[in-house]
């Protein structure tokens, strides 16, 4: 936790924190929600081209108060969301954050987001490397 906090402090002061050279992002999007929605969800595909597993341990954003990692699951017909501390991306593999599964969950900003808006996420991995992600607000995938 101290290492992650230190990374955010360094980022805040513009201190260069190593970008993760192995993880790439595709198709990052935030689902547009009704103006009264209190929580939003973001989705993306993360690919790991490295030979070792990469573990996503935190997500931050200048556009949201905080960002949490969650997993939706439906077990015996019951839908529930589970807070997740970390998400491993297998070596030479990918991790899908998609509706009904893993996703980022954020409190909605005061000014509602609309289709076409862009927001930024900073993903931090267990080796303290980061990945900046631009996501588009959309009504559907």
């Amino acid at each position: 936790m101290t290492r992650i906090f230190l990374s955010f402090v360094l980022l805040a002061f513009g201190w260069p924190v190593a970008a993760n050279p192995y993880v790439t992002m595709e198709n990052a999007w935030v689902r547009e929600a009704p103006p009264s929605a209190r929580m939003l969800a973001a989705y993306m595909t993360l690919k790991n081209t490295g030979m070792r597993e990469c573990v996503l341990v935190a997500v931050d954003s200048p556009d949201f108060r905080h960002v949490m990692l969650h997993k939706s699951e439906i077990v015996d017909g019951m839908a529930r969301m589970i807070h997740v501390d970390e998400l491993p991306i297998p070596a030479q593999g990918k991790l899908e954050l998609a509706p009904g599964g893993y996703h980022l969950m954020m409190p909605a900003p005061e000014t509602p987001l609309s289709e076409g808006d862009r927001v930024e996420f900073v993903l931090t991995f267990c080796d303290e490397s980061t990945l900046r992600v631009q996501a588009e607000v959309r009504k559907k995938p």
Partner: protein
Amino acid sequence: MRTTIPGRVIHAIRRIIPLLCAAALLGACAPPEPPQLNRATLLPSAKPLLDFTLVDHNGDSFTLESLRGHWTLAFFGYTHCPDVCPTALSMLVQVRRKLEAGIPSDELPEVVFFSVDPERDTPAQLATFLPYFHPGFLGVTGDAGQITILTRQIGILHAKAEGAGDSDYLVDHSAAIILFDPEGKFHAVFGVPHDPDLLVPDFLAIRQYYEASR
């Protein structure tokens, strides 16, 4: 040379024809076969419900009577849900659009979102949530006890998630879509995962079977 039909043949025909007519008549009156369904489960017989008193997002009373006169597709969720509930409502928008292409507008099912989080889902909150998905979708909320009167009759479960202490608590809830028939009875369940290309033909088949059985 005239050909005469033997008397015994005529006698046999006279006995068989009434039997054939009776068989045809019975066949025409036989009950329709239950439909083959993709994802829906049809109740063996539609279940009458005990009444309840809730309120819709326009502030009008919503009771068992509100379910009568039309089919209703019902989903049970909450507006703080960022993933499953918006996904289900978006799916129901697709269902609505596909049905609009096939059946008269006055025969379209109502889509009703029942909140399982009445503490935060006030009528005003629902009024700015449901119309975003479709102007015809209706949000319903009310007293928690009244919501449970309805949900326990149709097998819908809901509860605050463990560790729920702050204002951003999560709610676990059944993800099935419930079908109420025009008599306001619990008629069928659409299980997960929800797919409009499977739900729409299921609904049409159930509706046709219902009409043919009356």
